[in-house]
Every structure is written in C-alpha cells, then in structure tokens.
C-alpha cells in the first residue's frame, strides 16, 4: 500500500516535471533558457519515474535497469546540452535581447576554434 502511494507520487511528480520541461521549452524566450528547462526538468522527471519503476517492481534486475537509465541520463544529458548550447552560440544564434552580460562575446575564433579566457584579451 505504502509502496503504491510512493510509486504513484513519484510517477505523477515525475510527469509533472516533464510537463514543466515541455512548457519551459515552449515558453522560454531563447535557446539557453529553453535548455535550462528541458535538460534538468526532463532528467529529474525521468529520474523520478524510474525510481517509481524500481520501487514498483522491487526486483534487483529491474532496479538495476532503472538506476542505469537514471545514470545514463545524468551522464548524457549535460553533454548533449553543452554541445548544443555551444554549437548554437558558435553558430551565432542570437540570445534573448534582455540578456545581462555576455562575457563570451568576441572571445571565440571560429577559424581556429580557439576560445580565449578574459585574461588573454590583451594579447
């Protein structure tokens, strides 16, 4: 009974995070902010659902699979996010017009793909 409640809660919470991720992706004004929403909320949502799965089954094999899925998501999601965000930035896709700082601006040389740190600005 308790397991069922926990499982249900985890499931629904996870799904709510997924909806949140989707809404975020829809509503946020520029790419990085959409990614803030999707990457993390998505990962969290799936994590919760997988926890629900492992609790529901309460079998080692299933738990191993569910935890592996969580692990894999945690491993791959940030890389994917990073790679897309970097590529989008490099490709010159504009950021939101209300952006506060852009300390990366002008420090990337697409020809050599060299990225300067602020210290190197003088040379």
């Amino acid at each position: 009974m308790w397991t069922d409640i926990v499982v249900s809660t985890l499931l629904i919470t996870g799904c709510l995070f997924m909806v949140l991720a989707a809404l975020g992706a829809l509503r946020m004004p520029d790419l990085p902010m959409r990614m803030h929403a999707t990457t993390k909320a998505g990962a969290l949502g799936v994590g919760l659902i997988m926890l629900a799965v492992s609790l529901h089954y309460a079998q080692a094999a299933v738990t191993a699979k569910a935890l592996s899925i969580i692990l894999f998501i945690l491993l791959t999601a940030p890389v994917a996010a990073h790679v897309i965000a970097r590529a989008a930035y490099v490709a010159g896709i504009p950021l939101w017009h209300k952006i506060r700082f852009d300390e990366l601006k002008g420090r990337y040389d697409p020809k050599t793909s060299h990225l300067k740190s602020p210290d190197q600005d003088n040379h």
Partner: protein
Amino acid sequence: MISSAVSISYFLISLALLIIFIRLVLGPTLPDRVVALELMATLTLAFIGIYSIDSGKDHFLDVGLVIALTSFLAAIGFARYLEKRGSSDVD
C-alpha cells in the same frame, strides 16, 4: 491506486509530448528543434517507464536503456552540423 496514477501520468506525458511538439514545429532555429527532439526522447523514456509499470513487463526498460544511452548522439550530430555550417542555415 497505481492504475489511476498511471492514467494521470499517461495524460501528463501525452500533454508534454504535444506541448514539446509545438516547439519542434515552431523552432525557430535548428538548436531549438534539437532541444525539443531531445526532450521528446526523454518523454519516450518516461512513457516507457510508465508503461512498464502499467504492463507489468520489465522488458520495455531495455528500450529505455537504449534511448538513455544513444539519444544524445543525434544532438551531437546536429551540433556538428551547426558548427560546420555556421549561422548561414540554422532555421
């Protein structure tokens, strides 16, 4: 109890799927679509999680494992495209 939770979950995930699909269509730029696609993969994963509770068959988690491990490759591919192509064709 579980079954109603599952039903609600199905509903929510379907909702999320429809919402993110709008982003996929709207874009406006390629990375936006890729982000949407990535989330779709995650939603598929969530679907599979719910379904394996719903069906009582854990075989479907294998599908989830594969999605979890490989879906980011498409994103990397798209990113590679973006870096090669530059801003000339990003929508």
